[in-house]
């Protein structure tokens, strides 16, 4: 028979309880760890994305300039007056035009470039091309504008000087309503081309080599490999580029509009984001600007949902 001291028996009685508690706390804290880790990000997203969204929705029902002590409640007026505003309708047309022209340009052109550069992936030439095509992405619009303003200048610009050399009349690239919007499209494409191309190149790099080798052994030609293996395997990247381009294309083009044309000539290069900016920060109509922001948010959400509903089914996630 084992003799135990009272102290020992007490220890036996309490130790399992303490261990259980510690274990429970450990399990709870382990379960909570992910939440603790993402909490800072959640707070940031809440403060900088969801709270502005909620506050914008609230402000869209007021006539206010952010400073006046009195906010006038105007109900749905900020929304209902938009269709009667010719400037809003012009901005809407511009938005549609930019979306229809820039989305294909920013989605397919970089893909084409990536496919052209892919075969020379191990050469210095590809590195040079990559640097050349990517560098516009990191140049601020304000800096790039100086260069493009000079290129497009009707009297001293290099573009018109070349045209005049060939006997073509000078063109007011930024002051003619027929050419200004195309000038904006050129600059916006130039700015984003390299980034998307880089994403495609990375995706192409990720395609397993044994798939390609197996297909080659089976006698597949270059085009068949591209169509049946490479492209399906890079569709996640393609889908990502498509969705983010549709979401951001009119936001991206804002920089070019702001520094090159101010929405002119005659509002011909404006879009809904520039209209929003003018309402909020040139005319100080924060309520009206918030209403436009809500409309943009709703339209973008619907477009994104449509893409997930109808395009995502064609994406091969591997």
């Amino acid at each position, binding site marked *: 028979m084992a003799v135990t001291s009272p102290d020992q028996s007490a220890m036996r009685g309490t130790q399992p309880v303490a261990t259980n508690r510690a274990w429970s706390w450990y399990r709870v804290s382990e379960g909570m760890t992910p939440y603790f880790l993402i909490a800072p990000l959640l707070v940031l997203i809440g403060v900088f994305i969801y709270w502005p969204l909620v506050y914008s929705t609230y402000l869209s029902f007021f006539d206010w300039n952010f400073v006046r002590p009195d906010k006038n409640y105007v109900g749905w007026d900020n929304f209902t007056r938009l269709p009667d505003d010719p400037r809003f309708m012009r901005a809407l047309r511009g938005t549609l035009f930019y979306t229809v022209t820039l989305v294909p340009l920013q989605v397919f052109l970089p893909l084409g470039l990536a496919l052209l550069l892919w075969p020379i992936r191990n050469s210095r030439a590809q590195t040079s091309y990559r640097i050349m095509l990517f560098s516009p992405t990191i140049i601020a619009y304000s800096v790039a504008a100086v260069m493009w303003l000079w290129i497009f200048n009707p009297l001293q610009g290099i573009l018109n000087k070349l045209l005049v050399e060939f006997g073509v009349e000078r063109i007011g690239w*930024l*002051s*003619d309503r027929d050419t200004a919007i195309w000038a904006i499209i050129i600059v916006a494409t130039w700015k984003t081309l390299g980034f998307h191309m880089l994403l495609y190149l990375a995706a192409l790099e990720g395609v397993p080599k044994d798939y390609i080798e197996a297909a080659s052994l089976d006698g597949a030609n270059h085009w068949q490999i591209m169509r049946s293996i490479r492209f399906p395997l890079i569709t996640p990247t393609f889908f990502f580029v498509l969705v983010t381009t549709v979401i951001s294309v009119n936001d991206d083009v804002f920089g070019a509009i702001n520094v090159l044309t101010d929405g002119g000539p*005659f509002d011909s290069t404006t879009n809904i984001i520039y209209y929003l900016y003018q309402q909020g920060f040139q005319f100080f109509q924060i309520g009206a600007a918030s209403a436009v922001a809500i409309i943009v948010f709703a339209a973008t959400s619907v477009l994104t949902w449509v893409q997930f509903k109808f395009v995502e089914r064609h994406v091969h996630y591997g």
Partner: protein
Amino acid sequence: MSDMTRRRFVGQAAAVAGAAAVAGTAATSAGRVAAQEKTEITIYHIWGTPPGGTPAEQPAPMTQVIDAFNAQSETVTLNTNTPGNYQETLQKTQADIAAGNPPDLVSVPWANLHYAIDGLGVRDLASVAGDRYDEFVASMSETAWPLVTRDDVVHGFPWGLSTPIFYYNADIFEQAGVDPAEAFATWDSFAAACPALQEAVGGAPVFSLTYNKDWPAQTLIQSNGGRVLNDDGAFGFTSAEAKEAMQTIADLDTAGFYDRGTRDELRPNFIAGSTAVWQGSVASLGGLNNDAPFTLGTNTWPRFGDKPVVASTGGSFLGIFTEDESRFDAVLDFLAYCASEAGYSLWNQTGYVNISNIELERLPGQEPAYAQFEEGLILETNWPGARGLEAQAVWDVYCERMWANDISVEEGVSQALEGINAIIGA
């Protein structure tokens, strides 16, 4: 020095360094105490570079005024922020007011007086100046005060008074054999001179009107006897006089003499000698004198027949937004310095019309501005209502469209009126 050992040298050096450090700390502390005693105030303004110009070797005149003030003041430090153009300056002001940290002084365009009062809550001068109010009113020309007065209340300190004038490249005029005085006499004589000038610039357009077309449109229409906005608050740009004036530019555009360029093209085109004439603010005189590589000439606006040139004002006043009453004296000290001979002499280098009570030598090239000033300026249009800025933008686009023949003048003024009424009445 022969008995100077290394240990001794190091020891003495350490002692000197220690003494210097102590002295330095003491001096810094003293300096900090002095700095703490100074009241810090802030001004937002547009004059970081000469208006419309590029940075020159010498600091811009407003920077000189501020630096000189800070150097002589024992009680105030004025900090500067130059957010950009007038619009960007107002944007920053608005954001900082909303954030509860307004600047003390801001350069506010005369044209935005109503917005500064109703939208931004600019302080009236009397409430800030108190007993010193009369001293301030006496410090500037009596012609300037109505520009910052509404309902008999003064809402700012008059500072930069400009007016649009014509700048020309005298070398091109000489090459074309055109006498500037004759060419700028009337719009008819100007149109007659354009073909020769166009040949001299290699077939390019001859002249441009400054961006923000609303501003030159005012002088154009007023000089033909019309108004953009009548004194009774009704829009006058649909009058026969206004339409005739607007048609003048449209006709010059049809003939290929008018440069339709964008905001960032017009002035560079003139500086590069690609166009012969540029209409801009007299405030650009200092900047153009720095930048123009040719003989720069200035002139008043051409007349419509024998009618007088009735130009608009331009420029800005200094609006007071200080919330903390303990800083009022600091703000007033700076304004008093601005009105003093020392301050205003520095400011006078810009090209702005002298609205102080100090006799100062006029700058070469300023003559047309004074001629128009003496002929009678009209206060730049203050677009009415809470959505006045938006209405102004609508009119601005229609001016651009009418002058570039994108729309007929008849249709342009009619559609502009409809659009503006929809906004102002909304």
